[in-house]
Structures are given as structure tokens and as C-alpha cells.
């Protein structure tokens, strides 16, 4: 503990700082934390993800006050929330829109890392923790979608849980253990409720904290992919860095304003977003006697879902599904370029990453379509391209990611 923080201020502040290092913490984490000065629009999404997480916790706490888990009560309690609780419709829509917003923000956040090589050394662990957050978020969103106990909740749960059936040997027993019954039932709904409101939020909060701790250790990457810590001024601060507070906190406030405006437009004018954020079959109660004509998960899972169902073998389909999700974890070691940012890589790298972004979006669209032959065929074309990105990356990045980079970040004063 530095002597400065003990003598700063008087009265209550001095008393407080002697017992808890508040000023020291602020100095370490905000005003004394230097971030590159060349952040662009891609750098809004980390703080926005944190904002959405907090929004989901707050709206979740309030809708849980009206929600009643259980196969006899769940659907009606959501309808009650929507129709009879004052502003219940708003709380519920904020939460359901927040789920999709979370994934939009997280996907853009991940795309940023792919563009600027933010997963590369020394940020491998930061990336891996981020991927764990993404996986936890997928589980959290899946279980949350089951809770209203609409017909898509029920059959979505049935389909997703049955993927585990393909694990050799233990599959059927594992599936029965996950459900707690011979079919998706009351027991399944109740355990998903517990996990959704207690276990997963705690896990997410812990992972987000670790993500931030790791970020503070290595510092943010930037659009040029240059380490600002390697170019310090006479004062020992990075010459291309500016204090996170007040510069980036203020910049993030602008991002928050734009984000909340768009978010409110969806909440008030398109809460189901044409069936993408809340699917139409989920407005009828779960019916174990009737599968919806067309089962599709919510849009944020559809790239992987398109892969799962396009492969005409059950076990291989599940394997490709798992690999397509897990492959991201290995990016720090697949990318062998010297330079981080796409700005200082060759045309081949740019084409490869561009192809991957397009294939990901096409698969996302295909996963929303019915299981008709033309869409299955298109998915079968996209699957090799999807995995080609991960297979070719080591060679392409090694070949054309080593050109000269400037010594200072690209920055134009506004």
C-alpha cells in the first residue's frame, strides 16, 4: 500500500482508505490503466456485453418474482406476467431481447478478436476465458428458453438433450440423468430453472471477473495489433496509451447510448423480431403429443445446428457440431502469424477470414430454414468451408502474416 493513498483526502475518505484501498483500486484499474489510443467502433462491445449481463440479472430478478417453475404452472405464469403484472410485458421483453442482444454483442466482440488477432500471445488465456464465457452463455440461454414451457421450449429441450444420446456407451443413461425422467418433464424444467437463475449466473460472473483480471494483466490489443507497452515515454507510461478513465469510460457512454436506443426500438416495436428472438410455436403451451412442424433453435445457435442436421450420420453429426463450437478455443495456437492485426496480413489471410465470416452467416441462415433438400445441400457445401478456415489458418497465417508493422499505432486526432 503506497503512502499516497493513506494521506489523500481527509475525514471519511482517509478513514475509508485506511481500511479498504478504494482510491488505490481506482488508480490501478481505471485512471492508471492505460489503453491504446486508437480504439475504433469494434471496441464498444466488451463493455456493452457487461452492460447486458447486468441488465439480464436485474430483469431476471424481477421476472423470477412472478415466474412459477413446473410443467403445470410455468406457461401460465409467463402469460400472467405478460398480461396482468403491471409492466410485466416490459420486464419479460427486456429479458428476452437481452438474450439476443447478449449474443449479438458477444459475436461482434469475438469478430473483433478475429480481425485484430486479439487472441494471440500474450492474450491466449484471455481468449480461452472468453470462450468459456461464451459456452456458459450458450447453456444459460438454452435453459432460459426452456423455462416458458412453450411448445418450442419443450421440443427444443428434447432435441438438444438428445444430442448426448450419441455419446457411445453412456449416452442413453446420461440423457435420462439430465432429464430426471424418461422424457423431458417437470424434473427437467425445475433443474433448468435452478441452473438458469443460480448456478449459471454465478459461474458467468466469476468467469467475467477472471476475464477482466486477465485483461488488466496483458492490456487491450488494438486495431494495429502493436503492443503499446513496448513503447514507453519518459514518464513510464505507454506513449500510445491513454487512461481508461476518463477517456474510454466516456467513449463507452456514447456506445451505451446508441446501443440502448436500438435495444429500445426492438423491445417496443419488434419484441419477437419476426420470430427470431421469440419463436411463434412458443406462444402455445408445451405439448408432448405434437412436434412443431418446423423446429429451429433461436438464431444464435443456428450455425452449429445447421452443421448438426446436415450430416446424414447421427454420431458424426454430433461430433461435427461439437467440433464447430470448440474449434474457436484453439485459435491462439492455430494462428502462426508474427503480426496480429488483419491490417498487416496479406490478401490470403483477408480472404480466408472473409470467407469464414460469410460461411458463418450463411450457416446461421440455413439453420433457420426447414430441413428441405436444397438447404441441407447448401449446408453440406458450407461445412467443409467452415472447417477449412481452422485447417488452413496455420499455413496461411505463417505465409503472409509477417510483413513490416509501424512502430506507432495509427491515430488521427479528431
Amino acid at each position, binding site marked *: 500500500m503506497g503512502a499516497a493513498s493513506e494521506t489523500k483526502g481527509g475525514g471519511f475518505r482517509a478513514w475509508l482508505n485506511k481500511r479498504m484501498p478504494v482510491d488505490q483500486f481506482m488508480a490501478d484499474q481505471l485512471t492508471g490503466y492505460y489503453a491504446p489510443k486508437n480504439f475504433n467502433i469494434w471496441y464498444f462491445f466488451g463493455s456493452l456485453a457487461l452492460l447486458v449481463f447486468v441488465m439480464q440479472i436485474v430483469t431476471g430478478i424481477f421476472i423470477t418474482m412472478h415466474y412459477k417453475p413446473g410443467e403445470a404452472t410455468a406457461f401460465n405464469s409467463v402469460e400472467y406476467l405478460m398480461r396482468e403484472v403491471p409492466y410485466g410485458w416490459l420486464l419479460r421483453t427486456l429479458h428476452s431481447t437481452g438474450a439476443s442482444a447478449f449474443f449479438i454483442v458477444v459475436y461482434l466482440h469475438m469478430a473483433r478478436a478475429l480481425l485484430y488477432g486479439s487472441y494471440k500471445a500474450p492474450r491466449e488465456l484471455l481468449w480461452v476465458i472468453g470462450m468459456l464465457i461464451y459456452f456458459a452463455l450458450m447453456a444459460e440461454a438454452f435453459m432460459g428458453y426452456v423455462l416458458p414451457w412453450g411448445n418450442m421450449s419443450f421440443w427444443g429441450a428434447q432435441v438438444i438433450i438428445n444430442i448426448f444420446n450419441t455419446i457411445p456407451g453412456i449416452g442413453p443413461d446420461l440423457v*435420462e440423468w439430465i432429464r*430426471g425422467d424418461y422424457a423431458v418433464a417437470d424434473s427437467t424444467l425445475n433443474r433448468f430453472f435452478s441452473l438458469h437463475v443460480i448456478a449459471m449466473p454465478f459461474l458467468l460472473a466469476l468467469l467475467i471477473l477472471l476475464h477482466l483480471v486477465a485483461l488488466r494483466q496483458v492490456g487491450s490489443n488494438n486495431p494495429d495489433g502493436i503492443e503499446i507497452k513496448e513503447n514507453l515515454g519518459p514518464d513510464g507510461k505507454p506513449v500510445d496509451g491513454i487512461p481508461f478513465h476518463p477517456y474510454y469510460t466516456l467513449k463507452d457512454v456514447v456506445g451505451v447510448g446508441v446501443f440502448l436506443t436500438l435495444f429500445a426500438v426492438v423491445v417496443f416495436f419488434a419484441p419477437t423480431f419476426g420470430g427470431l428472438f421469440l419463436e411463434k410455436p412458443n406462444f402455445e403451451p408445451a405439448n408432448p403429443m405434437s412436434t412443431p412442424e418446423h*423446429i429451429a433453435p433461436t438464431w444464435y445457435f443456428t450455425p452449429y445446428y445447421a452443421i448438426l442436421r446436415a450430416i446424414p450420420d447421427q454420431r458424426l453429426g454430433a461430433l461435427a457440431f461439437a467440433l464447430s463450437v470448440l474449434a474457436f478455443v484453439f485459435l491462439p495456437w492455430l494462428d502462426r502469424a508474427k503480426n496480429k492485426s488483419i491490417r498487416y496480413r496479406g490478401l490470403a489471410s483477408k480472404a480466408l477470414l472473409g470467407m469464414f465470416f460469410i460461411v458463418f452467416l450463411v450457416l446461421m441462415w440455413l439453420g433457420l430454414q426447414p430441413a428441405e433438400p436444397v438447404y441441407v445441400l447448401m449446408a453440406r457445401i458450407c461445412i467443409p468451408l467452415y472447417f477449412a478456415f481452422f485447417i488452413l489458418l496455420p499455413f496461411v497465417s505463417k505465409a503472409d502474416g509477417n510483413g513490416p508493422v509501424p512502430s506507432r499505432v495509427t491515430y488521427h486526432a479528431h
Partner: protein
Amino acid sequence: MSDHATDDTVPEVDESRRKFLVAATVGTGAVGAVLTAVPFLSSWSPSESARAAGLPTEVDLSKIEAGQMATFFWRKQPIYVVKRTPEMVASLKSHDADLKDPKSDASDQPAYAKNEDRSLKPDVLVLIGTCTHLGCLPKTRFTPGDATVTANWPGGFFCPCHGSKFDLAGRVFQGSPASVNLRVPPYSFKGDNTLVIGADAAAEKGAA
């Protein structure tokens, strides 16, 4: 327990003894943690009442017309019961080459239903109505030649979720994402028109 050193010299640490104690403590703690996890993990298994609800159930088949299907519930799973006409049974012989598992070798059924028509009595087909792919309910497409399914359709089931196709014995067609035939639950008959779902029949037929 032990003598205290009375002089100022620090007694030498017995490293091997310390290592053993650390290993023993960690090991005992790990065993305890694993054993403590058992009740927590076991609580996810089907409860007593869920198991009790999975006992055999008797259903009346007298109201099912020939060529029609009725759905019952056993263990919260839909059970399809089809009264097959002689033409339906005869149609099963025509397409073995188009099936993934025509002899049901890789599929799940009681021994007495592992035969050509996958049933105890050829005129009554009993299936668990969840697709072996990912668990949707296959829809009935019993009309032969139904072009909405495929050309030369012999009649059977079609799963709308991912497009798996099954014949009138629940056997899966080539080109389906499902890999094995629809499952047959254990069942038996009490008299002509009472089906007992969940109770095995004595191996009276085709148990080869």
C-alpha cells in the same frame, strides 16, 4: 505429543515425512469430495414417483380401426400403436435394400420383436414414437405413393424436424439423419384387445 526443542536450533524438517502427510491429506480430502458428490449427482436421476409412473400400463385396442394409429403414453413417451392391414404387412418385404438396418441388428427392440415385421402379432405394430435421431415425433404418412415424402413411398413415418423416414415397421430408410430404427418398447397382450405396454411377453415368437 512430541518433545519441544529446548535450545535455539531449529530441528531439521523431515521432507519425506512432510510430503507423505501432504499427499495423505490431499488424498483423503479428494476421496471425501468425490463421495460427497454422489448424493448431489444422484439427485438428478429419475425420482421414485417418476419410476413408479413408468410401470406397465394397459390400453384397449378395440377401438382402433385397421390401418389406423393411436397414441398412448408410457413413461411420458408417446407410444404409437398401428393396426396394420395385411397389405401394410405385405409392403414390408419390398424395400429391404433401401433400409439402413433391415434386420434390426443395430436397433433397440425386445428379442420377440426382432423379426421381419418387428412385432409380436403382425397386425399390431407397437413403437416408441420418438425419432431415434433427436427425439421429435415422426408423423404418419401411411398412404403408399405419397409424393410429399419421396418418390415410390411405400408408406410409413416421416419426421418433420430433420427429415428421417421410416417404414411401417419403424425401420429407417437410407438417407435419413437417424441411424437406427424406431425403438420397440417391451409389451405383451392380455387377451385379444388389451395391450400391456412395459411388460415383456414370453419369448414366443422369432426370438432366434
